[in-house]
């Protein structure tokens, strides 16, 4: 039997025949990157291959250091006899699934992904494959995302209520991905939208690279609180809450689906908005790939594997790839 196309090593997922890593954890000569989040794209690699839209993100995050090579979605690249291509993952700008093909066998690494629409990420395209490696951040059946319109309606009602109570609205969101998605989703007729410095940092970098983002104000130390009366501030944390005076804080995240997690969050208020697949979409996706074998990583591996076994599927936690060498 042939060796598997991918192995799990200390440095992460490795393709021995192509001699490259996918989202490596340690410094390696060649890295294929699914998307620009810091738990997937790390600095210091010899060379990077990713989607074209991820390049400005990586360049910004690594302060320009690195050798970057970009692909379009579906563009094929042959590396030592392995045909590699990237396909939309719908997670954030530039996010991609990695498809590897050799001798008629196809492996797909999902990276992070979602099936809900995103203004900056083309819709996820399921790839038929023999082996599918899927994330499982929200891999429990309690995670079923509500309609985005309903969530935004709630957030807008909360924002309006805060204006009535003379409080600035602060929404905690990841600077890359969630923050830009919110910029598209928020209703500007309610009030101005401000970006906290570290959110603004990524916003300006993306704009400078030619990405079309809606206008937003930048929050600086000099912004007088009086200008923020009816504002909503997108912030990565609670950093500015004190300086700005009376403010209401909320978190936008998939974890907010569970009340106890909402109450455990620093603000106690949450809106269910996620850039990852929920439980129904996770299993719909697995079905659509028609994979014979599913490896599960990045979250609730054991639970998703257990459910797939109940469905009669061949599924394993990704850790098994480390000892699966035959």
């Amino acid at each position, binding site marked *: 039997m042939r060796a598997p196309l991918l192995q799990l090593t200390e440095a992460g997922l490795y393709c021995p025949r192509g001699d490259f890593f996918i989202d490596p954890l340690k410094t390696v000569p060649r890295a294929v990157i699914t998307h620009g989040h810091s738990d997937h794209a790390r600095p210091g690699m010899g060379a990077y291959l990713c989607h074209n839209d991820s390049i400005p993100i990586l360049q910004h995050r690594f302060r320009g250091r690195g050798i970057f090579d970009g692909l379009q979605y579906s563009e094929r690249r042959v590396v030592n006899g392995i045909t590699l291509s990237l396909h939309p993952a719908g997670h954030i700008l530039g996010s991609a699934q990695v498809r590897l093909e050799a001798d008629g066998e196809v492996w797909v690494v999902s990276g992070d992904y979602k099936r809900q629409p995103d203004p900056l990420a083309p819709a996820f395209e399921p790839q038929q494959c023999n082996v599918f490696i899927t994330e499982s951040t929200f891999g429990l059946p309690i995670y079923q995302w509500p309609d985005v319109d309903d969530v935004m309606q709630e957030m807008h009602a909360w924002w309006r209520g805060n204006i009535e109570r003379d409080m600035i609205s602060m929404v905690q969101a990841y600077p890359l991905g969630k923050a830009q998605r919110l910029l598209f989703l928020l209703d500007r007729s309610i009030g101005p939208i401000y970006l906290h410095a570290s959110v603004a940092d990524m916003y300006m970098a993306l704009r400078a690279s030619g990405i079309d983002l809606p206008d937003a104000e930048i929050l600086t130390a000099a912004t007088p609180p009086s200008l923020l009366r009816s504002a909503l501030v997108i912030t990565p944390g609670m950093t500015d809450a004190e300086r700005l005076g009376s403010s209401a804080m909320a978190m936008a995240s998939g974890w907010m689906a569970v009340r106890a997690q909402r109450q*455990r969050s620093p603000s106690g208020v949450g809106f269910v908005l996620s850039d990852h697949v929920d439980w129904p979409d996770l299993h719909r996706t697995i079905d659509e790939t028609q994979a014979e074998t599913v490896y599960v990583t990045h979250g609730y591996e054991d639970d998703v594997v257990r459910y797939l076994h109940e469905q009669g599927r061949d599924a394993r936690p990704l850790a098994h790839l480390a000892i699966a060498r035959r």
Partner: protein
Amino acid sequence: MHGHLPISLLHDGDRTMQRFTHLLAALERSRRPADVVRAVQTYANAVHDEELAAARTLLTQGMRKRIVPTTDLRAWTCDASGLQEHWIDRCLADVGNISETCALLIPAPLQHDPPSVTSVLAMCTAKRISSDERMVWVQQAWQCMHADERRVFNQILTGTFRPLIDAEVFDLAFDDMPLPVPLRTALPLPSDLASLGSIHDHVVEWLVEGSRVEVVMAAGRVMMWSSDHTIVHRDEITAHLRASMPSTTDMILDAMIVERNGGAQLIVLDLLRYDGVDQRGFPYTDRRHLLRTIPGIRCVEELECEAWSDLADHLAHARDHGHGGVVVKQREAWYDDEGALYAQHVAPYTLTAVLTYVQFLSEYRTPAPLLQCTFSVWKGAELVPLCKIDDTLRDDHAIDIAAWARKNIVDRFGPIRQVEAVRVFEIGCTQVAHAPRKKSTLQLRNAHVIAERADVRLDQISTIDSILRQL
């Protein structure tokens, strides 16, 4: 999955369960009376009177009667979700309660058309309903609701819906009773007293120790609020106020309830509203003058001071008069003026202690969490709990501690969480007394957090012996 059943008997087209769920969310976010009243009014404007009455019953009395046993809830959830029962237990571990777990496991509604709260309560109280009929009804209702509505629905059915607010607070949304206003807090008196200006521009009063209350009198009624926005019921005080003042009185007082000789006494500190007029924008001298003209109330005693140096004398005698220190107020300041109110406790004791236990006092969150922290000191080689503090922790610091504590839980004892003993704080108190029955053998009075002391190591914090030496 079972078939889609007709649901006409359930829905009222007004999405009232959704509105009720939104009301609950607003109450969870804030219990400030003004916010509660606003949320109740918004709800009342959107629903029928019958629905409002049902909401009032639930919010003020809760639903303690179990209509559906959890075994049924589980079985029906498996049926509706197609999941095996062990998934319920698996998810329960992450979610924490069965009503919400089941609510989250049901697939999204085909058509969002939730039942009215009235119809849910009617079903709960209906006699002569077979359990099969009830099952069909519950499963139909699930299919028309979002997860958060299903959670509330399940809580009602399983008798785990707890009362959230006092009926008196709910009813404030519908009468003309003025709402309490934020009470100001005193700053610590600066060590350089001259920096405050002339003593003659200030009034010096005793620092009264007791429970801070806001007394609202209007429409022949008297309501007292604590500083954390709950209603304080002290009949002897309210009865006395009602008896000694005309029923037309429209007034808000900043006051202190003092327990003395087995009875409670109200000591008035300031006047916030009089004759229907907000007084907070007038100088303190005017407010104080007006206060002295009101019969039937006792005001805080003013102290004579000719020079700042007289303050030390008063401080030295505060305990003899049963007071905790002195307060300095600017004569011409508005009520809310920053830096117009200073307080100095009698020679406060200080010590350093480590945070060892945390209790989240309220299941529902107010803007600042209601935390109770237990601080411990060394007794030999053992850390023993010395004091519990909740009052002074209601600020951003508390939010930080709450977030940290939740991540650093070592053990659980009922509602109390033991946390890793690493965060050291400087604690102040006005009195240390012997308490042989306590493990620490000490009892602190008015214990409060002065500051976090990251510079003090765990092995350097106070010991029982070092505290005793201070006495």
